[in-house]
């Protein structure tokens, strides 16, 4: 231990902690407390559950923590919570972080390596946090002849587009940030935004390798968008709606992959290309064009693009789940919550455990259906993400001309085959209005 901190003394350590605490209290009481009071003087306080919410109520929460439950419930139904935490950004970022970790460990196992190991003691679980810290602390270098405003804006726009994509995904019944009637159309619009951001970033860097990478990305994304959109038309035909929540709800008895496997395959392949994953990672082909359109990005700009990439990966996998694998539908495996805890109380020997005020939260917000739907959705999404990651260990990269050939001839042809299958199913009355659904 002495190697890590040779001059460590417990008394000095305790003294420094006490010093910090004293300084914190001093600054808070002199500046923070007056500021809070002034803000409270100006802003009208909300009324929740017939009770004026004032900071002084916080002292009563100490005596009875169950009094916070209505506030938690009110917060969970706000748009802010949906955007920031559950079906939106926080949830997606958590899954994306998990994806990065799983990708590294899985690839390592495939290649007879260990993968991240030391950071965080347990199997390198904190490696991502370490990488993030490193990226944040690195200097951002901008090429001298770059178009600086656009170059700065591109990574931010990339993450914003990915987050907009995430916002359209319904996770559980009623749990979606933006429940648009033209949801699928909105998805196409957001997907169409990525090549623009990519070429903006690549071109504004004013460097050769990013330029070639950007052109490649543009080719790839634009030529694969057509089979992507065509492959989803079959689903729209049999459901008759563009709303993603309704599409997910329509698969309560069977997922569409049963009837439209061709469309699912085409969508999966185009998804790999849109995500620039191996074997379609031409825009980042390192042995030809260094890192492609990411070459000049440094520090947290690169980190933002990586974050956006993995958010996009999650969103595409989730879209696949919603459209072809039945979204949140699945067997009910989450056990019902013991409601006696909220109403009568559970007798645990001499004491009776009872949490008052829990009942509205459990019946209105965190229901059994919502938990089960989320679990089903996450399980399916993780499965799809696994299949997106797997080709990286098995395939080499393909070439631009082969890629374009694949996109423009084979995949578009297959997508039309899928459309005809869907048409036949609808006309035969198997699916659609009056059919099985």
């Amino acid at each position, binding site marked *: 231990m002495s190697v890590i901190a040779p001059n460590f003394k417990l008394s000095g350590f305790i003294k420094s902690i006490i010093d910090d605490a004293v300084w914190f209290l001093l600054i808070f009481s002199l500046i923070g407390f007056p500021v809070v009071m002034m803000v409270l003087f100006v802003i009208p306080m909300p009324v929740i559950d017939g009770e004026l919410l004032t900071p002084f109520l916080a002292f009563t929460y100490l005596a009875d923590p169950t009094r916070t439950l209505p506030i938690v419930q009110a917060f969970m139904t706000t748009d802010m919570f949906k955007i920031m935490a559950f079906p939106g950004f926080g949830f997606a970022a958590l899954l994306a972080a998990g994806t990065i970790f799983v990708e590294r460990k899985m690839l390592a196992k495939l*290649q007879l390596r260990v993968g991240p190991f030391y950071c965080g003691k347990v199997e390198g679980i904190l490696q991502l946090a370490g990488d993030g810290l490193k990226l944040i602390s690195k200097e951002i270098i901008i090429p001298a002849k770059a178009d600086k405003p656009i170059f700065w804006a591109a990574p931010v726009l990339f993450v914003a587009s990915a987050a907009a994509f995430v916002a359209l995904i319904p996770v559980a019944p009623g749990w979606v940030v933006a429940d648009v009637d033209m949801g699928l159309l909105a998805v196409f619009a957001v997907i169409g935004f990525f090549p623009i951001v990519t070429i903006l970033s690549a071109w504004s860097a004013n460097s050769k*390798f990013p330029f070639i990478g950007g052109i490649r990305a543009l080719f790839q994304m634009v030529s694969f968008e057509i089979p992507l959109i065509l492959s989803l038309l079959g689903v729209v035909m049999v459901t008759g709606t563009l709303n993603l929540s309704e599409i997910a709800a329509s698969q309560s008895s069977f997922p569409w992959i049963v009837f439209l496997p061709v469309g699912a395959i085409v969508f999966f392949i185009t998804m790999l290309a849109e995500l620039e994953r191996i074997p379609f990672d031409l825009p980042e082909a*390192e*042995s*030809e064009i260094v890192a492609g359109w990411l070459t000049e990005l440094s520090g947290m700009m690169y980190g933002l693009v990586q974050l956006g990439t993995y958010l996009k990966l999650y969103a595409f996998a989730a879209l696949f789940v919603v459209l072809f694998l039945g979204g949140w539908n699945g067997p009910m495996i989450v056990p019902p919550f013991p409601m006696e805890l909220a109403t009568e109380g559970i007798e645990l020997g001499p004491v009776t455990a009872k949490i008052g005020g829990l009942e509205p939260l459990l019946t209105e917000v965190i229901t059994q259906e919502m938990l089960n739907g989320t679990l089903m959705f996450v399980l399916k999404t993780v499965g799809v993400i696994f299949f997106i990651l797997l080709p990286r*260990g098995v395939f080499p*990269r393909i070439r631009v001309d082969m890629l374009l050939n694949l996109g423009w001839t084979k995949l578009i042809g297959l997508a039309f085959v899928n459309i005809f299958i869907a048409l036949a199913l609808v006309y035969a009355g198997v699916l659609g209005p009056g059919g099985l659904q």
Partner: protein
Amino acid sequence: MTAELPPGLAIQKVDERIMTLNVGPQHPGSGHMRIIVQIDGDYIVACDPDPGYVHRGEEKMAEYRNYITNIPHLERPVIHDSCNALYPYVLGVEELLGIEVPERAKYVRVICSELNRCIYIMYWLAIYGIFLGHSTMFMWPAGDRELLIDLMEKISGARVTHAHFVPGGVRNDLPPNFEEVCLRQVNYFEKRIREYAAVFYDNPILISRTQDTGVLSREDAIRLGTTGSVLRASGVSYDLRQKEPYDVYEELDVHSPVMKEGDSYARSKIPWLDMLESCNIIKQALQKMPKSGSVRVKLKPNPKGKGLDSVYKRVESGRGSLGCHIVSDGKVEPYRLKLSVGSFRNLIALPYLLKGEKLGNMPSVYWSLNYWPVEADR
């Protein structure tokens, strides 16, 4: 503009459509060199390989050291293939000094050089994998290489730069029980590299990427003076182990692989077949080797050549024929030492192969030439 240009300089006309790319020296796909590539869209118009970034003056250095102290630095150009890199020098010095090598030492040399060939090709294959974006094909050979490196460590004590061959034999005898360990490891290694076919050589994407790209015809291969795997991939059966057998290769059964296509795929498959052949040769040598005996002739301190004399010896290294021309003027140091390396000969084919190819084919064609930049610069 009327001023006359100095000789050797010329003004190049710049075409708006043509973009000049400096691939290297700081580029993940170049090695220790630069390839100046001119592209028109996705097609390569012209290619100018520019080696010389790792020139170390090995040949000049050899003129200031005696025949024994030259050993450790002459293997530096290709440290993975160090036994093969030393082989022609050692053969040449033996002829200059008139030394007769013991039989067992010759077999030990053959085993070492075949093990080293496999070690080199595994490294080459790993980089070929990463050049094609196949990261598993980088990790697997890099891991399986350890088997043979462990064997070489048992023999020589060092993991890469062995300096094991000396004029008059090899430095040390084989360790006890080596034959069984070697046979076991080599058998496992052979089984393992056969598995690479499933993930790499039979991979449809790899085949479609490398087949019919960078085709080198049989006539061009001979005209440009390529050697080794590049020559054999173009249909010329030319292997020095068969054509000019040195040491005990004539007593062994060598079947050097030959393919007719001459494209990147054939050039990338020949070294893999070479490894299988090397395993075969090692097993034969282990069987035929005398079980005991001396492995080294004791030399006098500071051995000298006999008057004005010169000798040229060449062997089949991992990259093709590797020649060593030693000129002696009767002193303890060589008067001149010239290495003729396979890498540089194969690099000559690069501009011809890349012209008209797509940019995406550049890494696969370049690395399939079995080129090691450090060896080419010496």
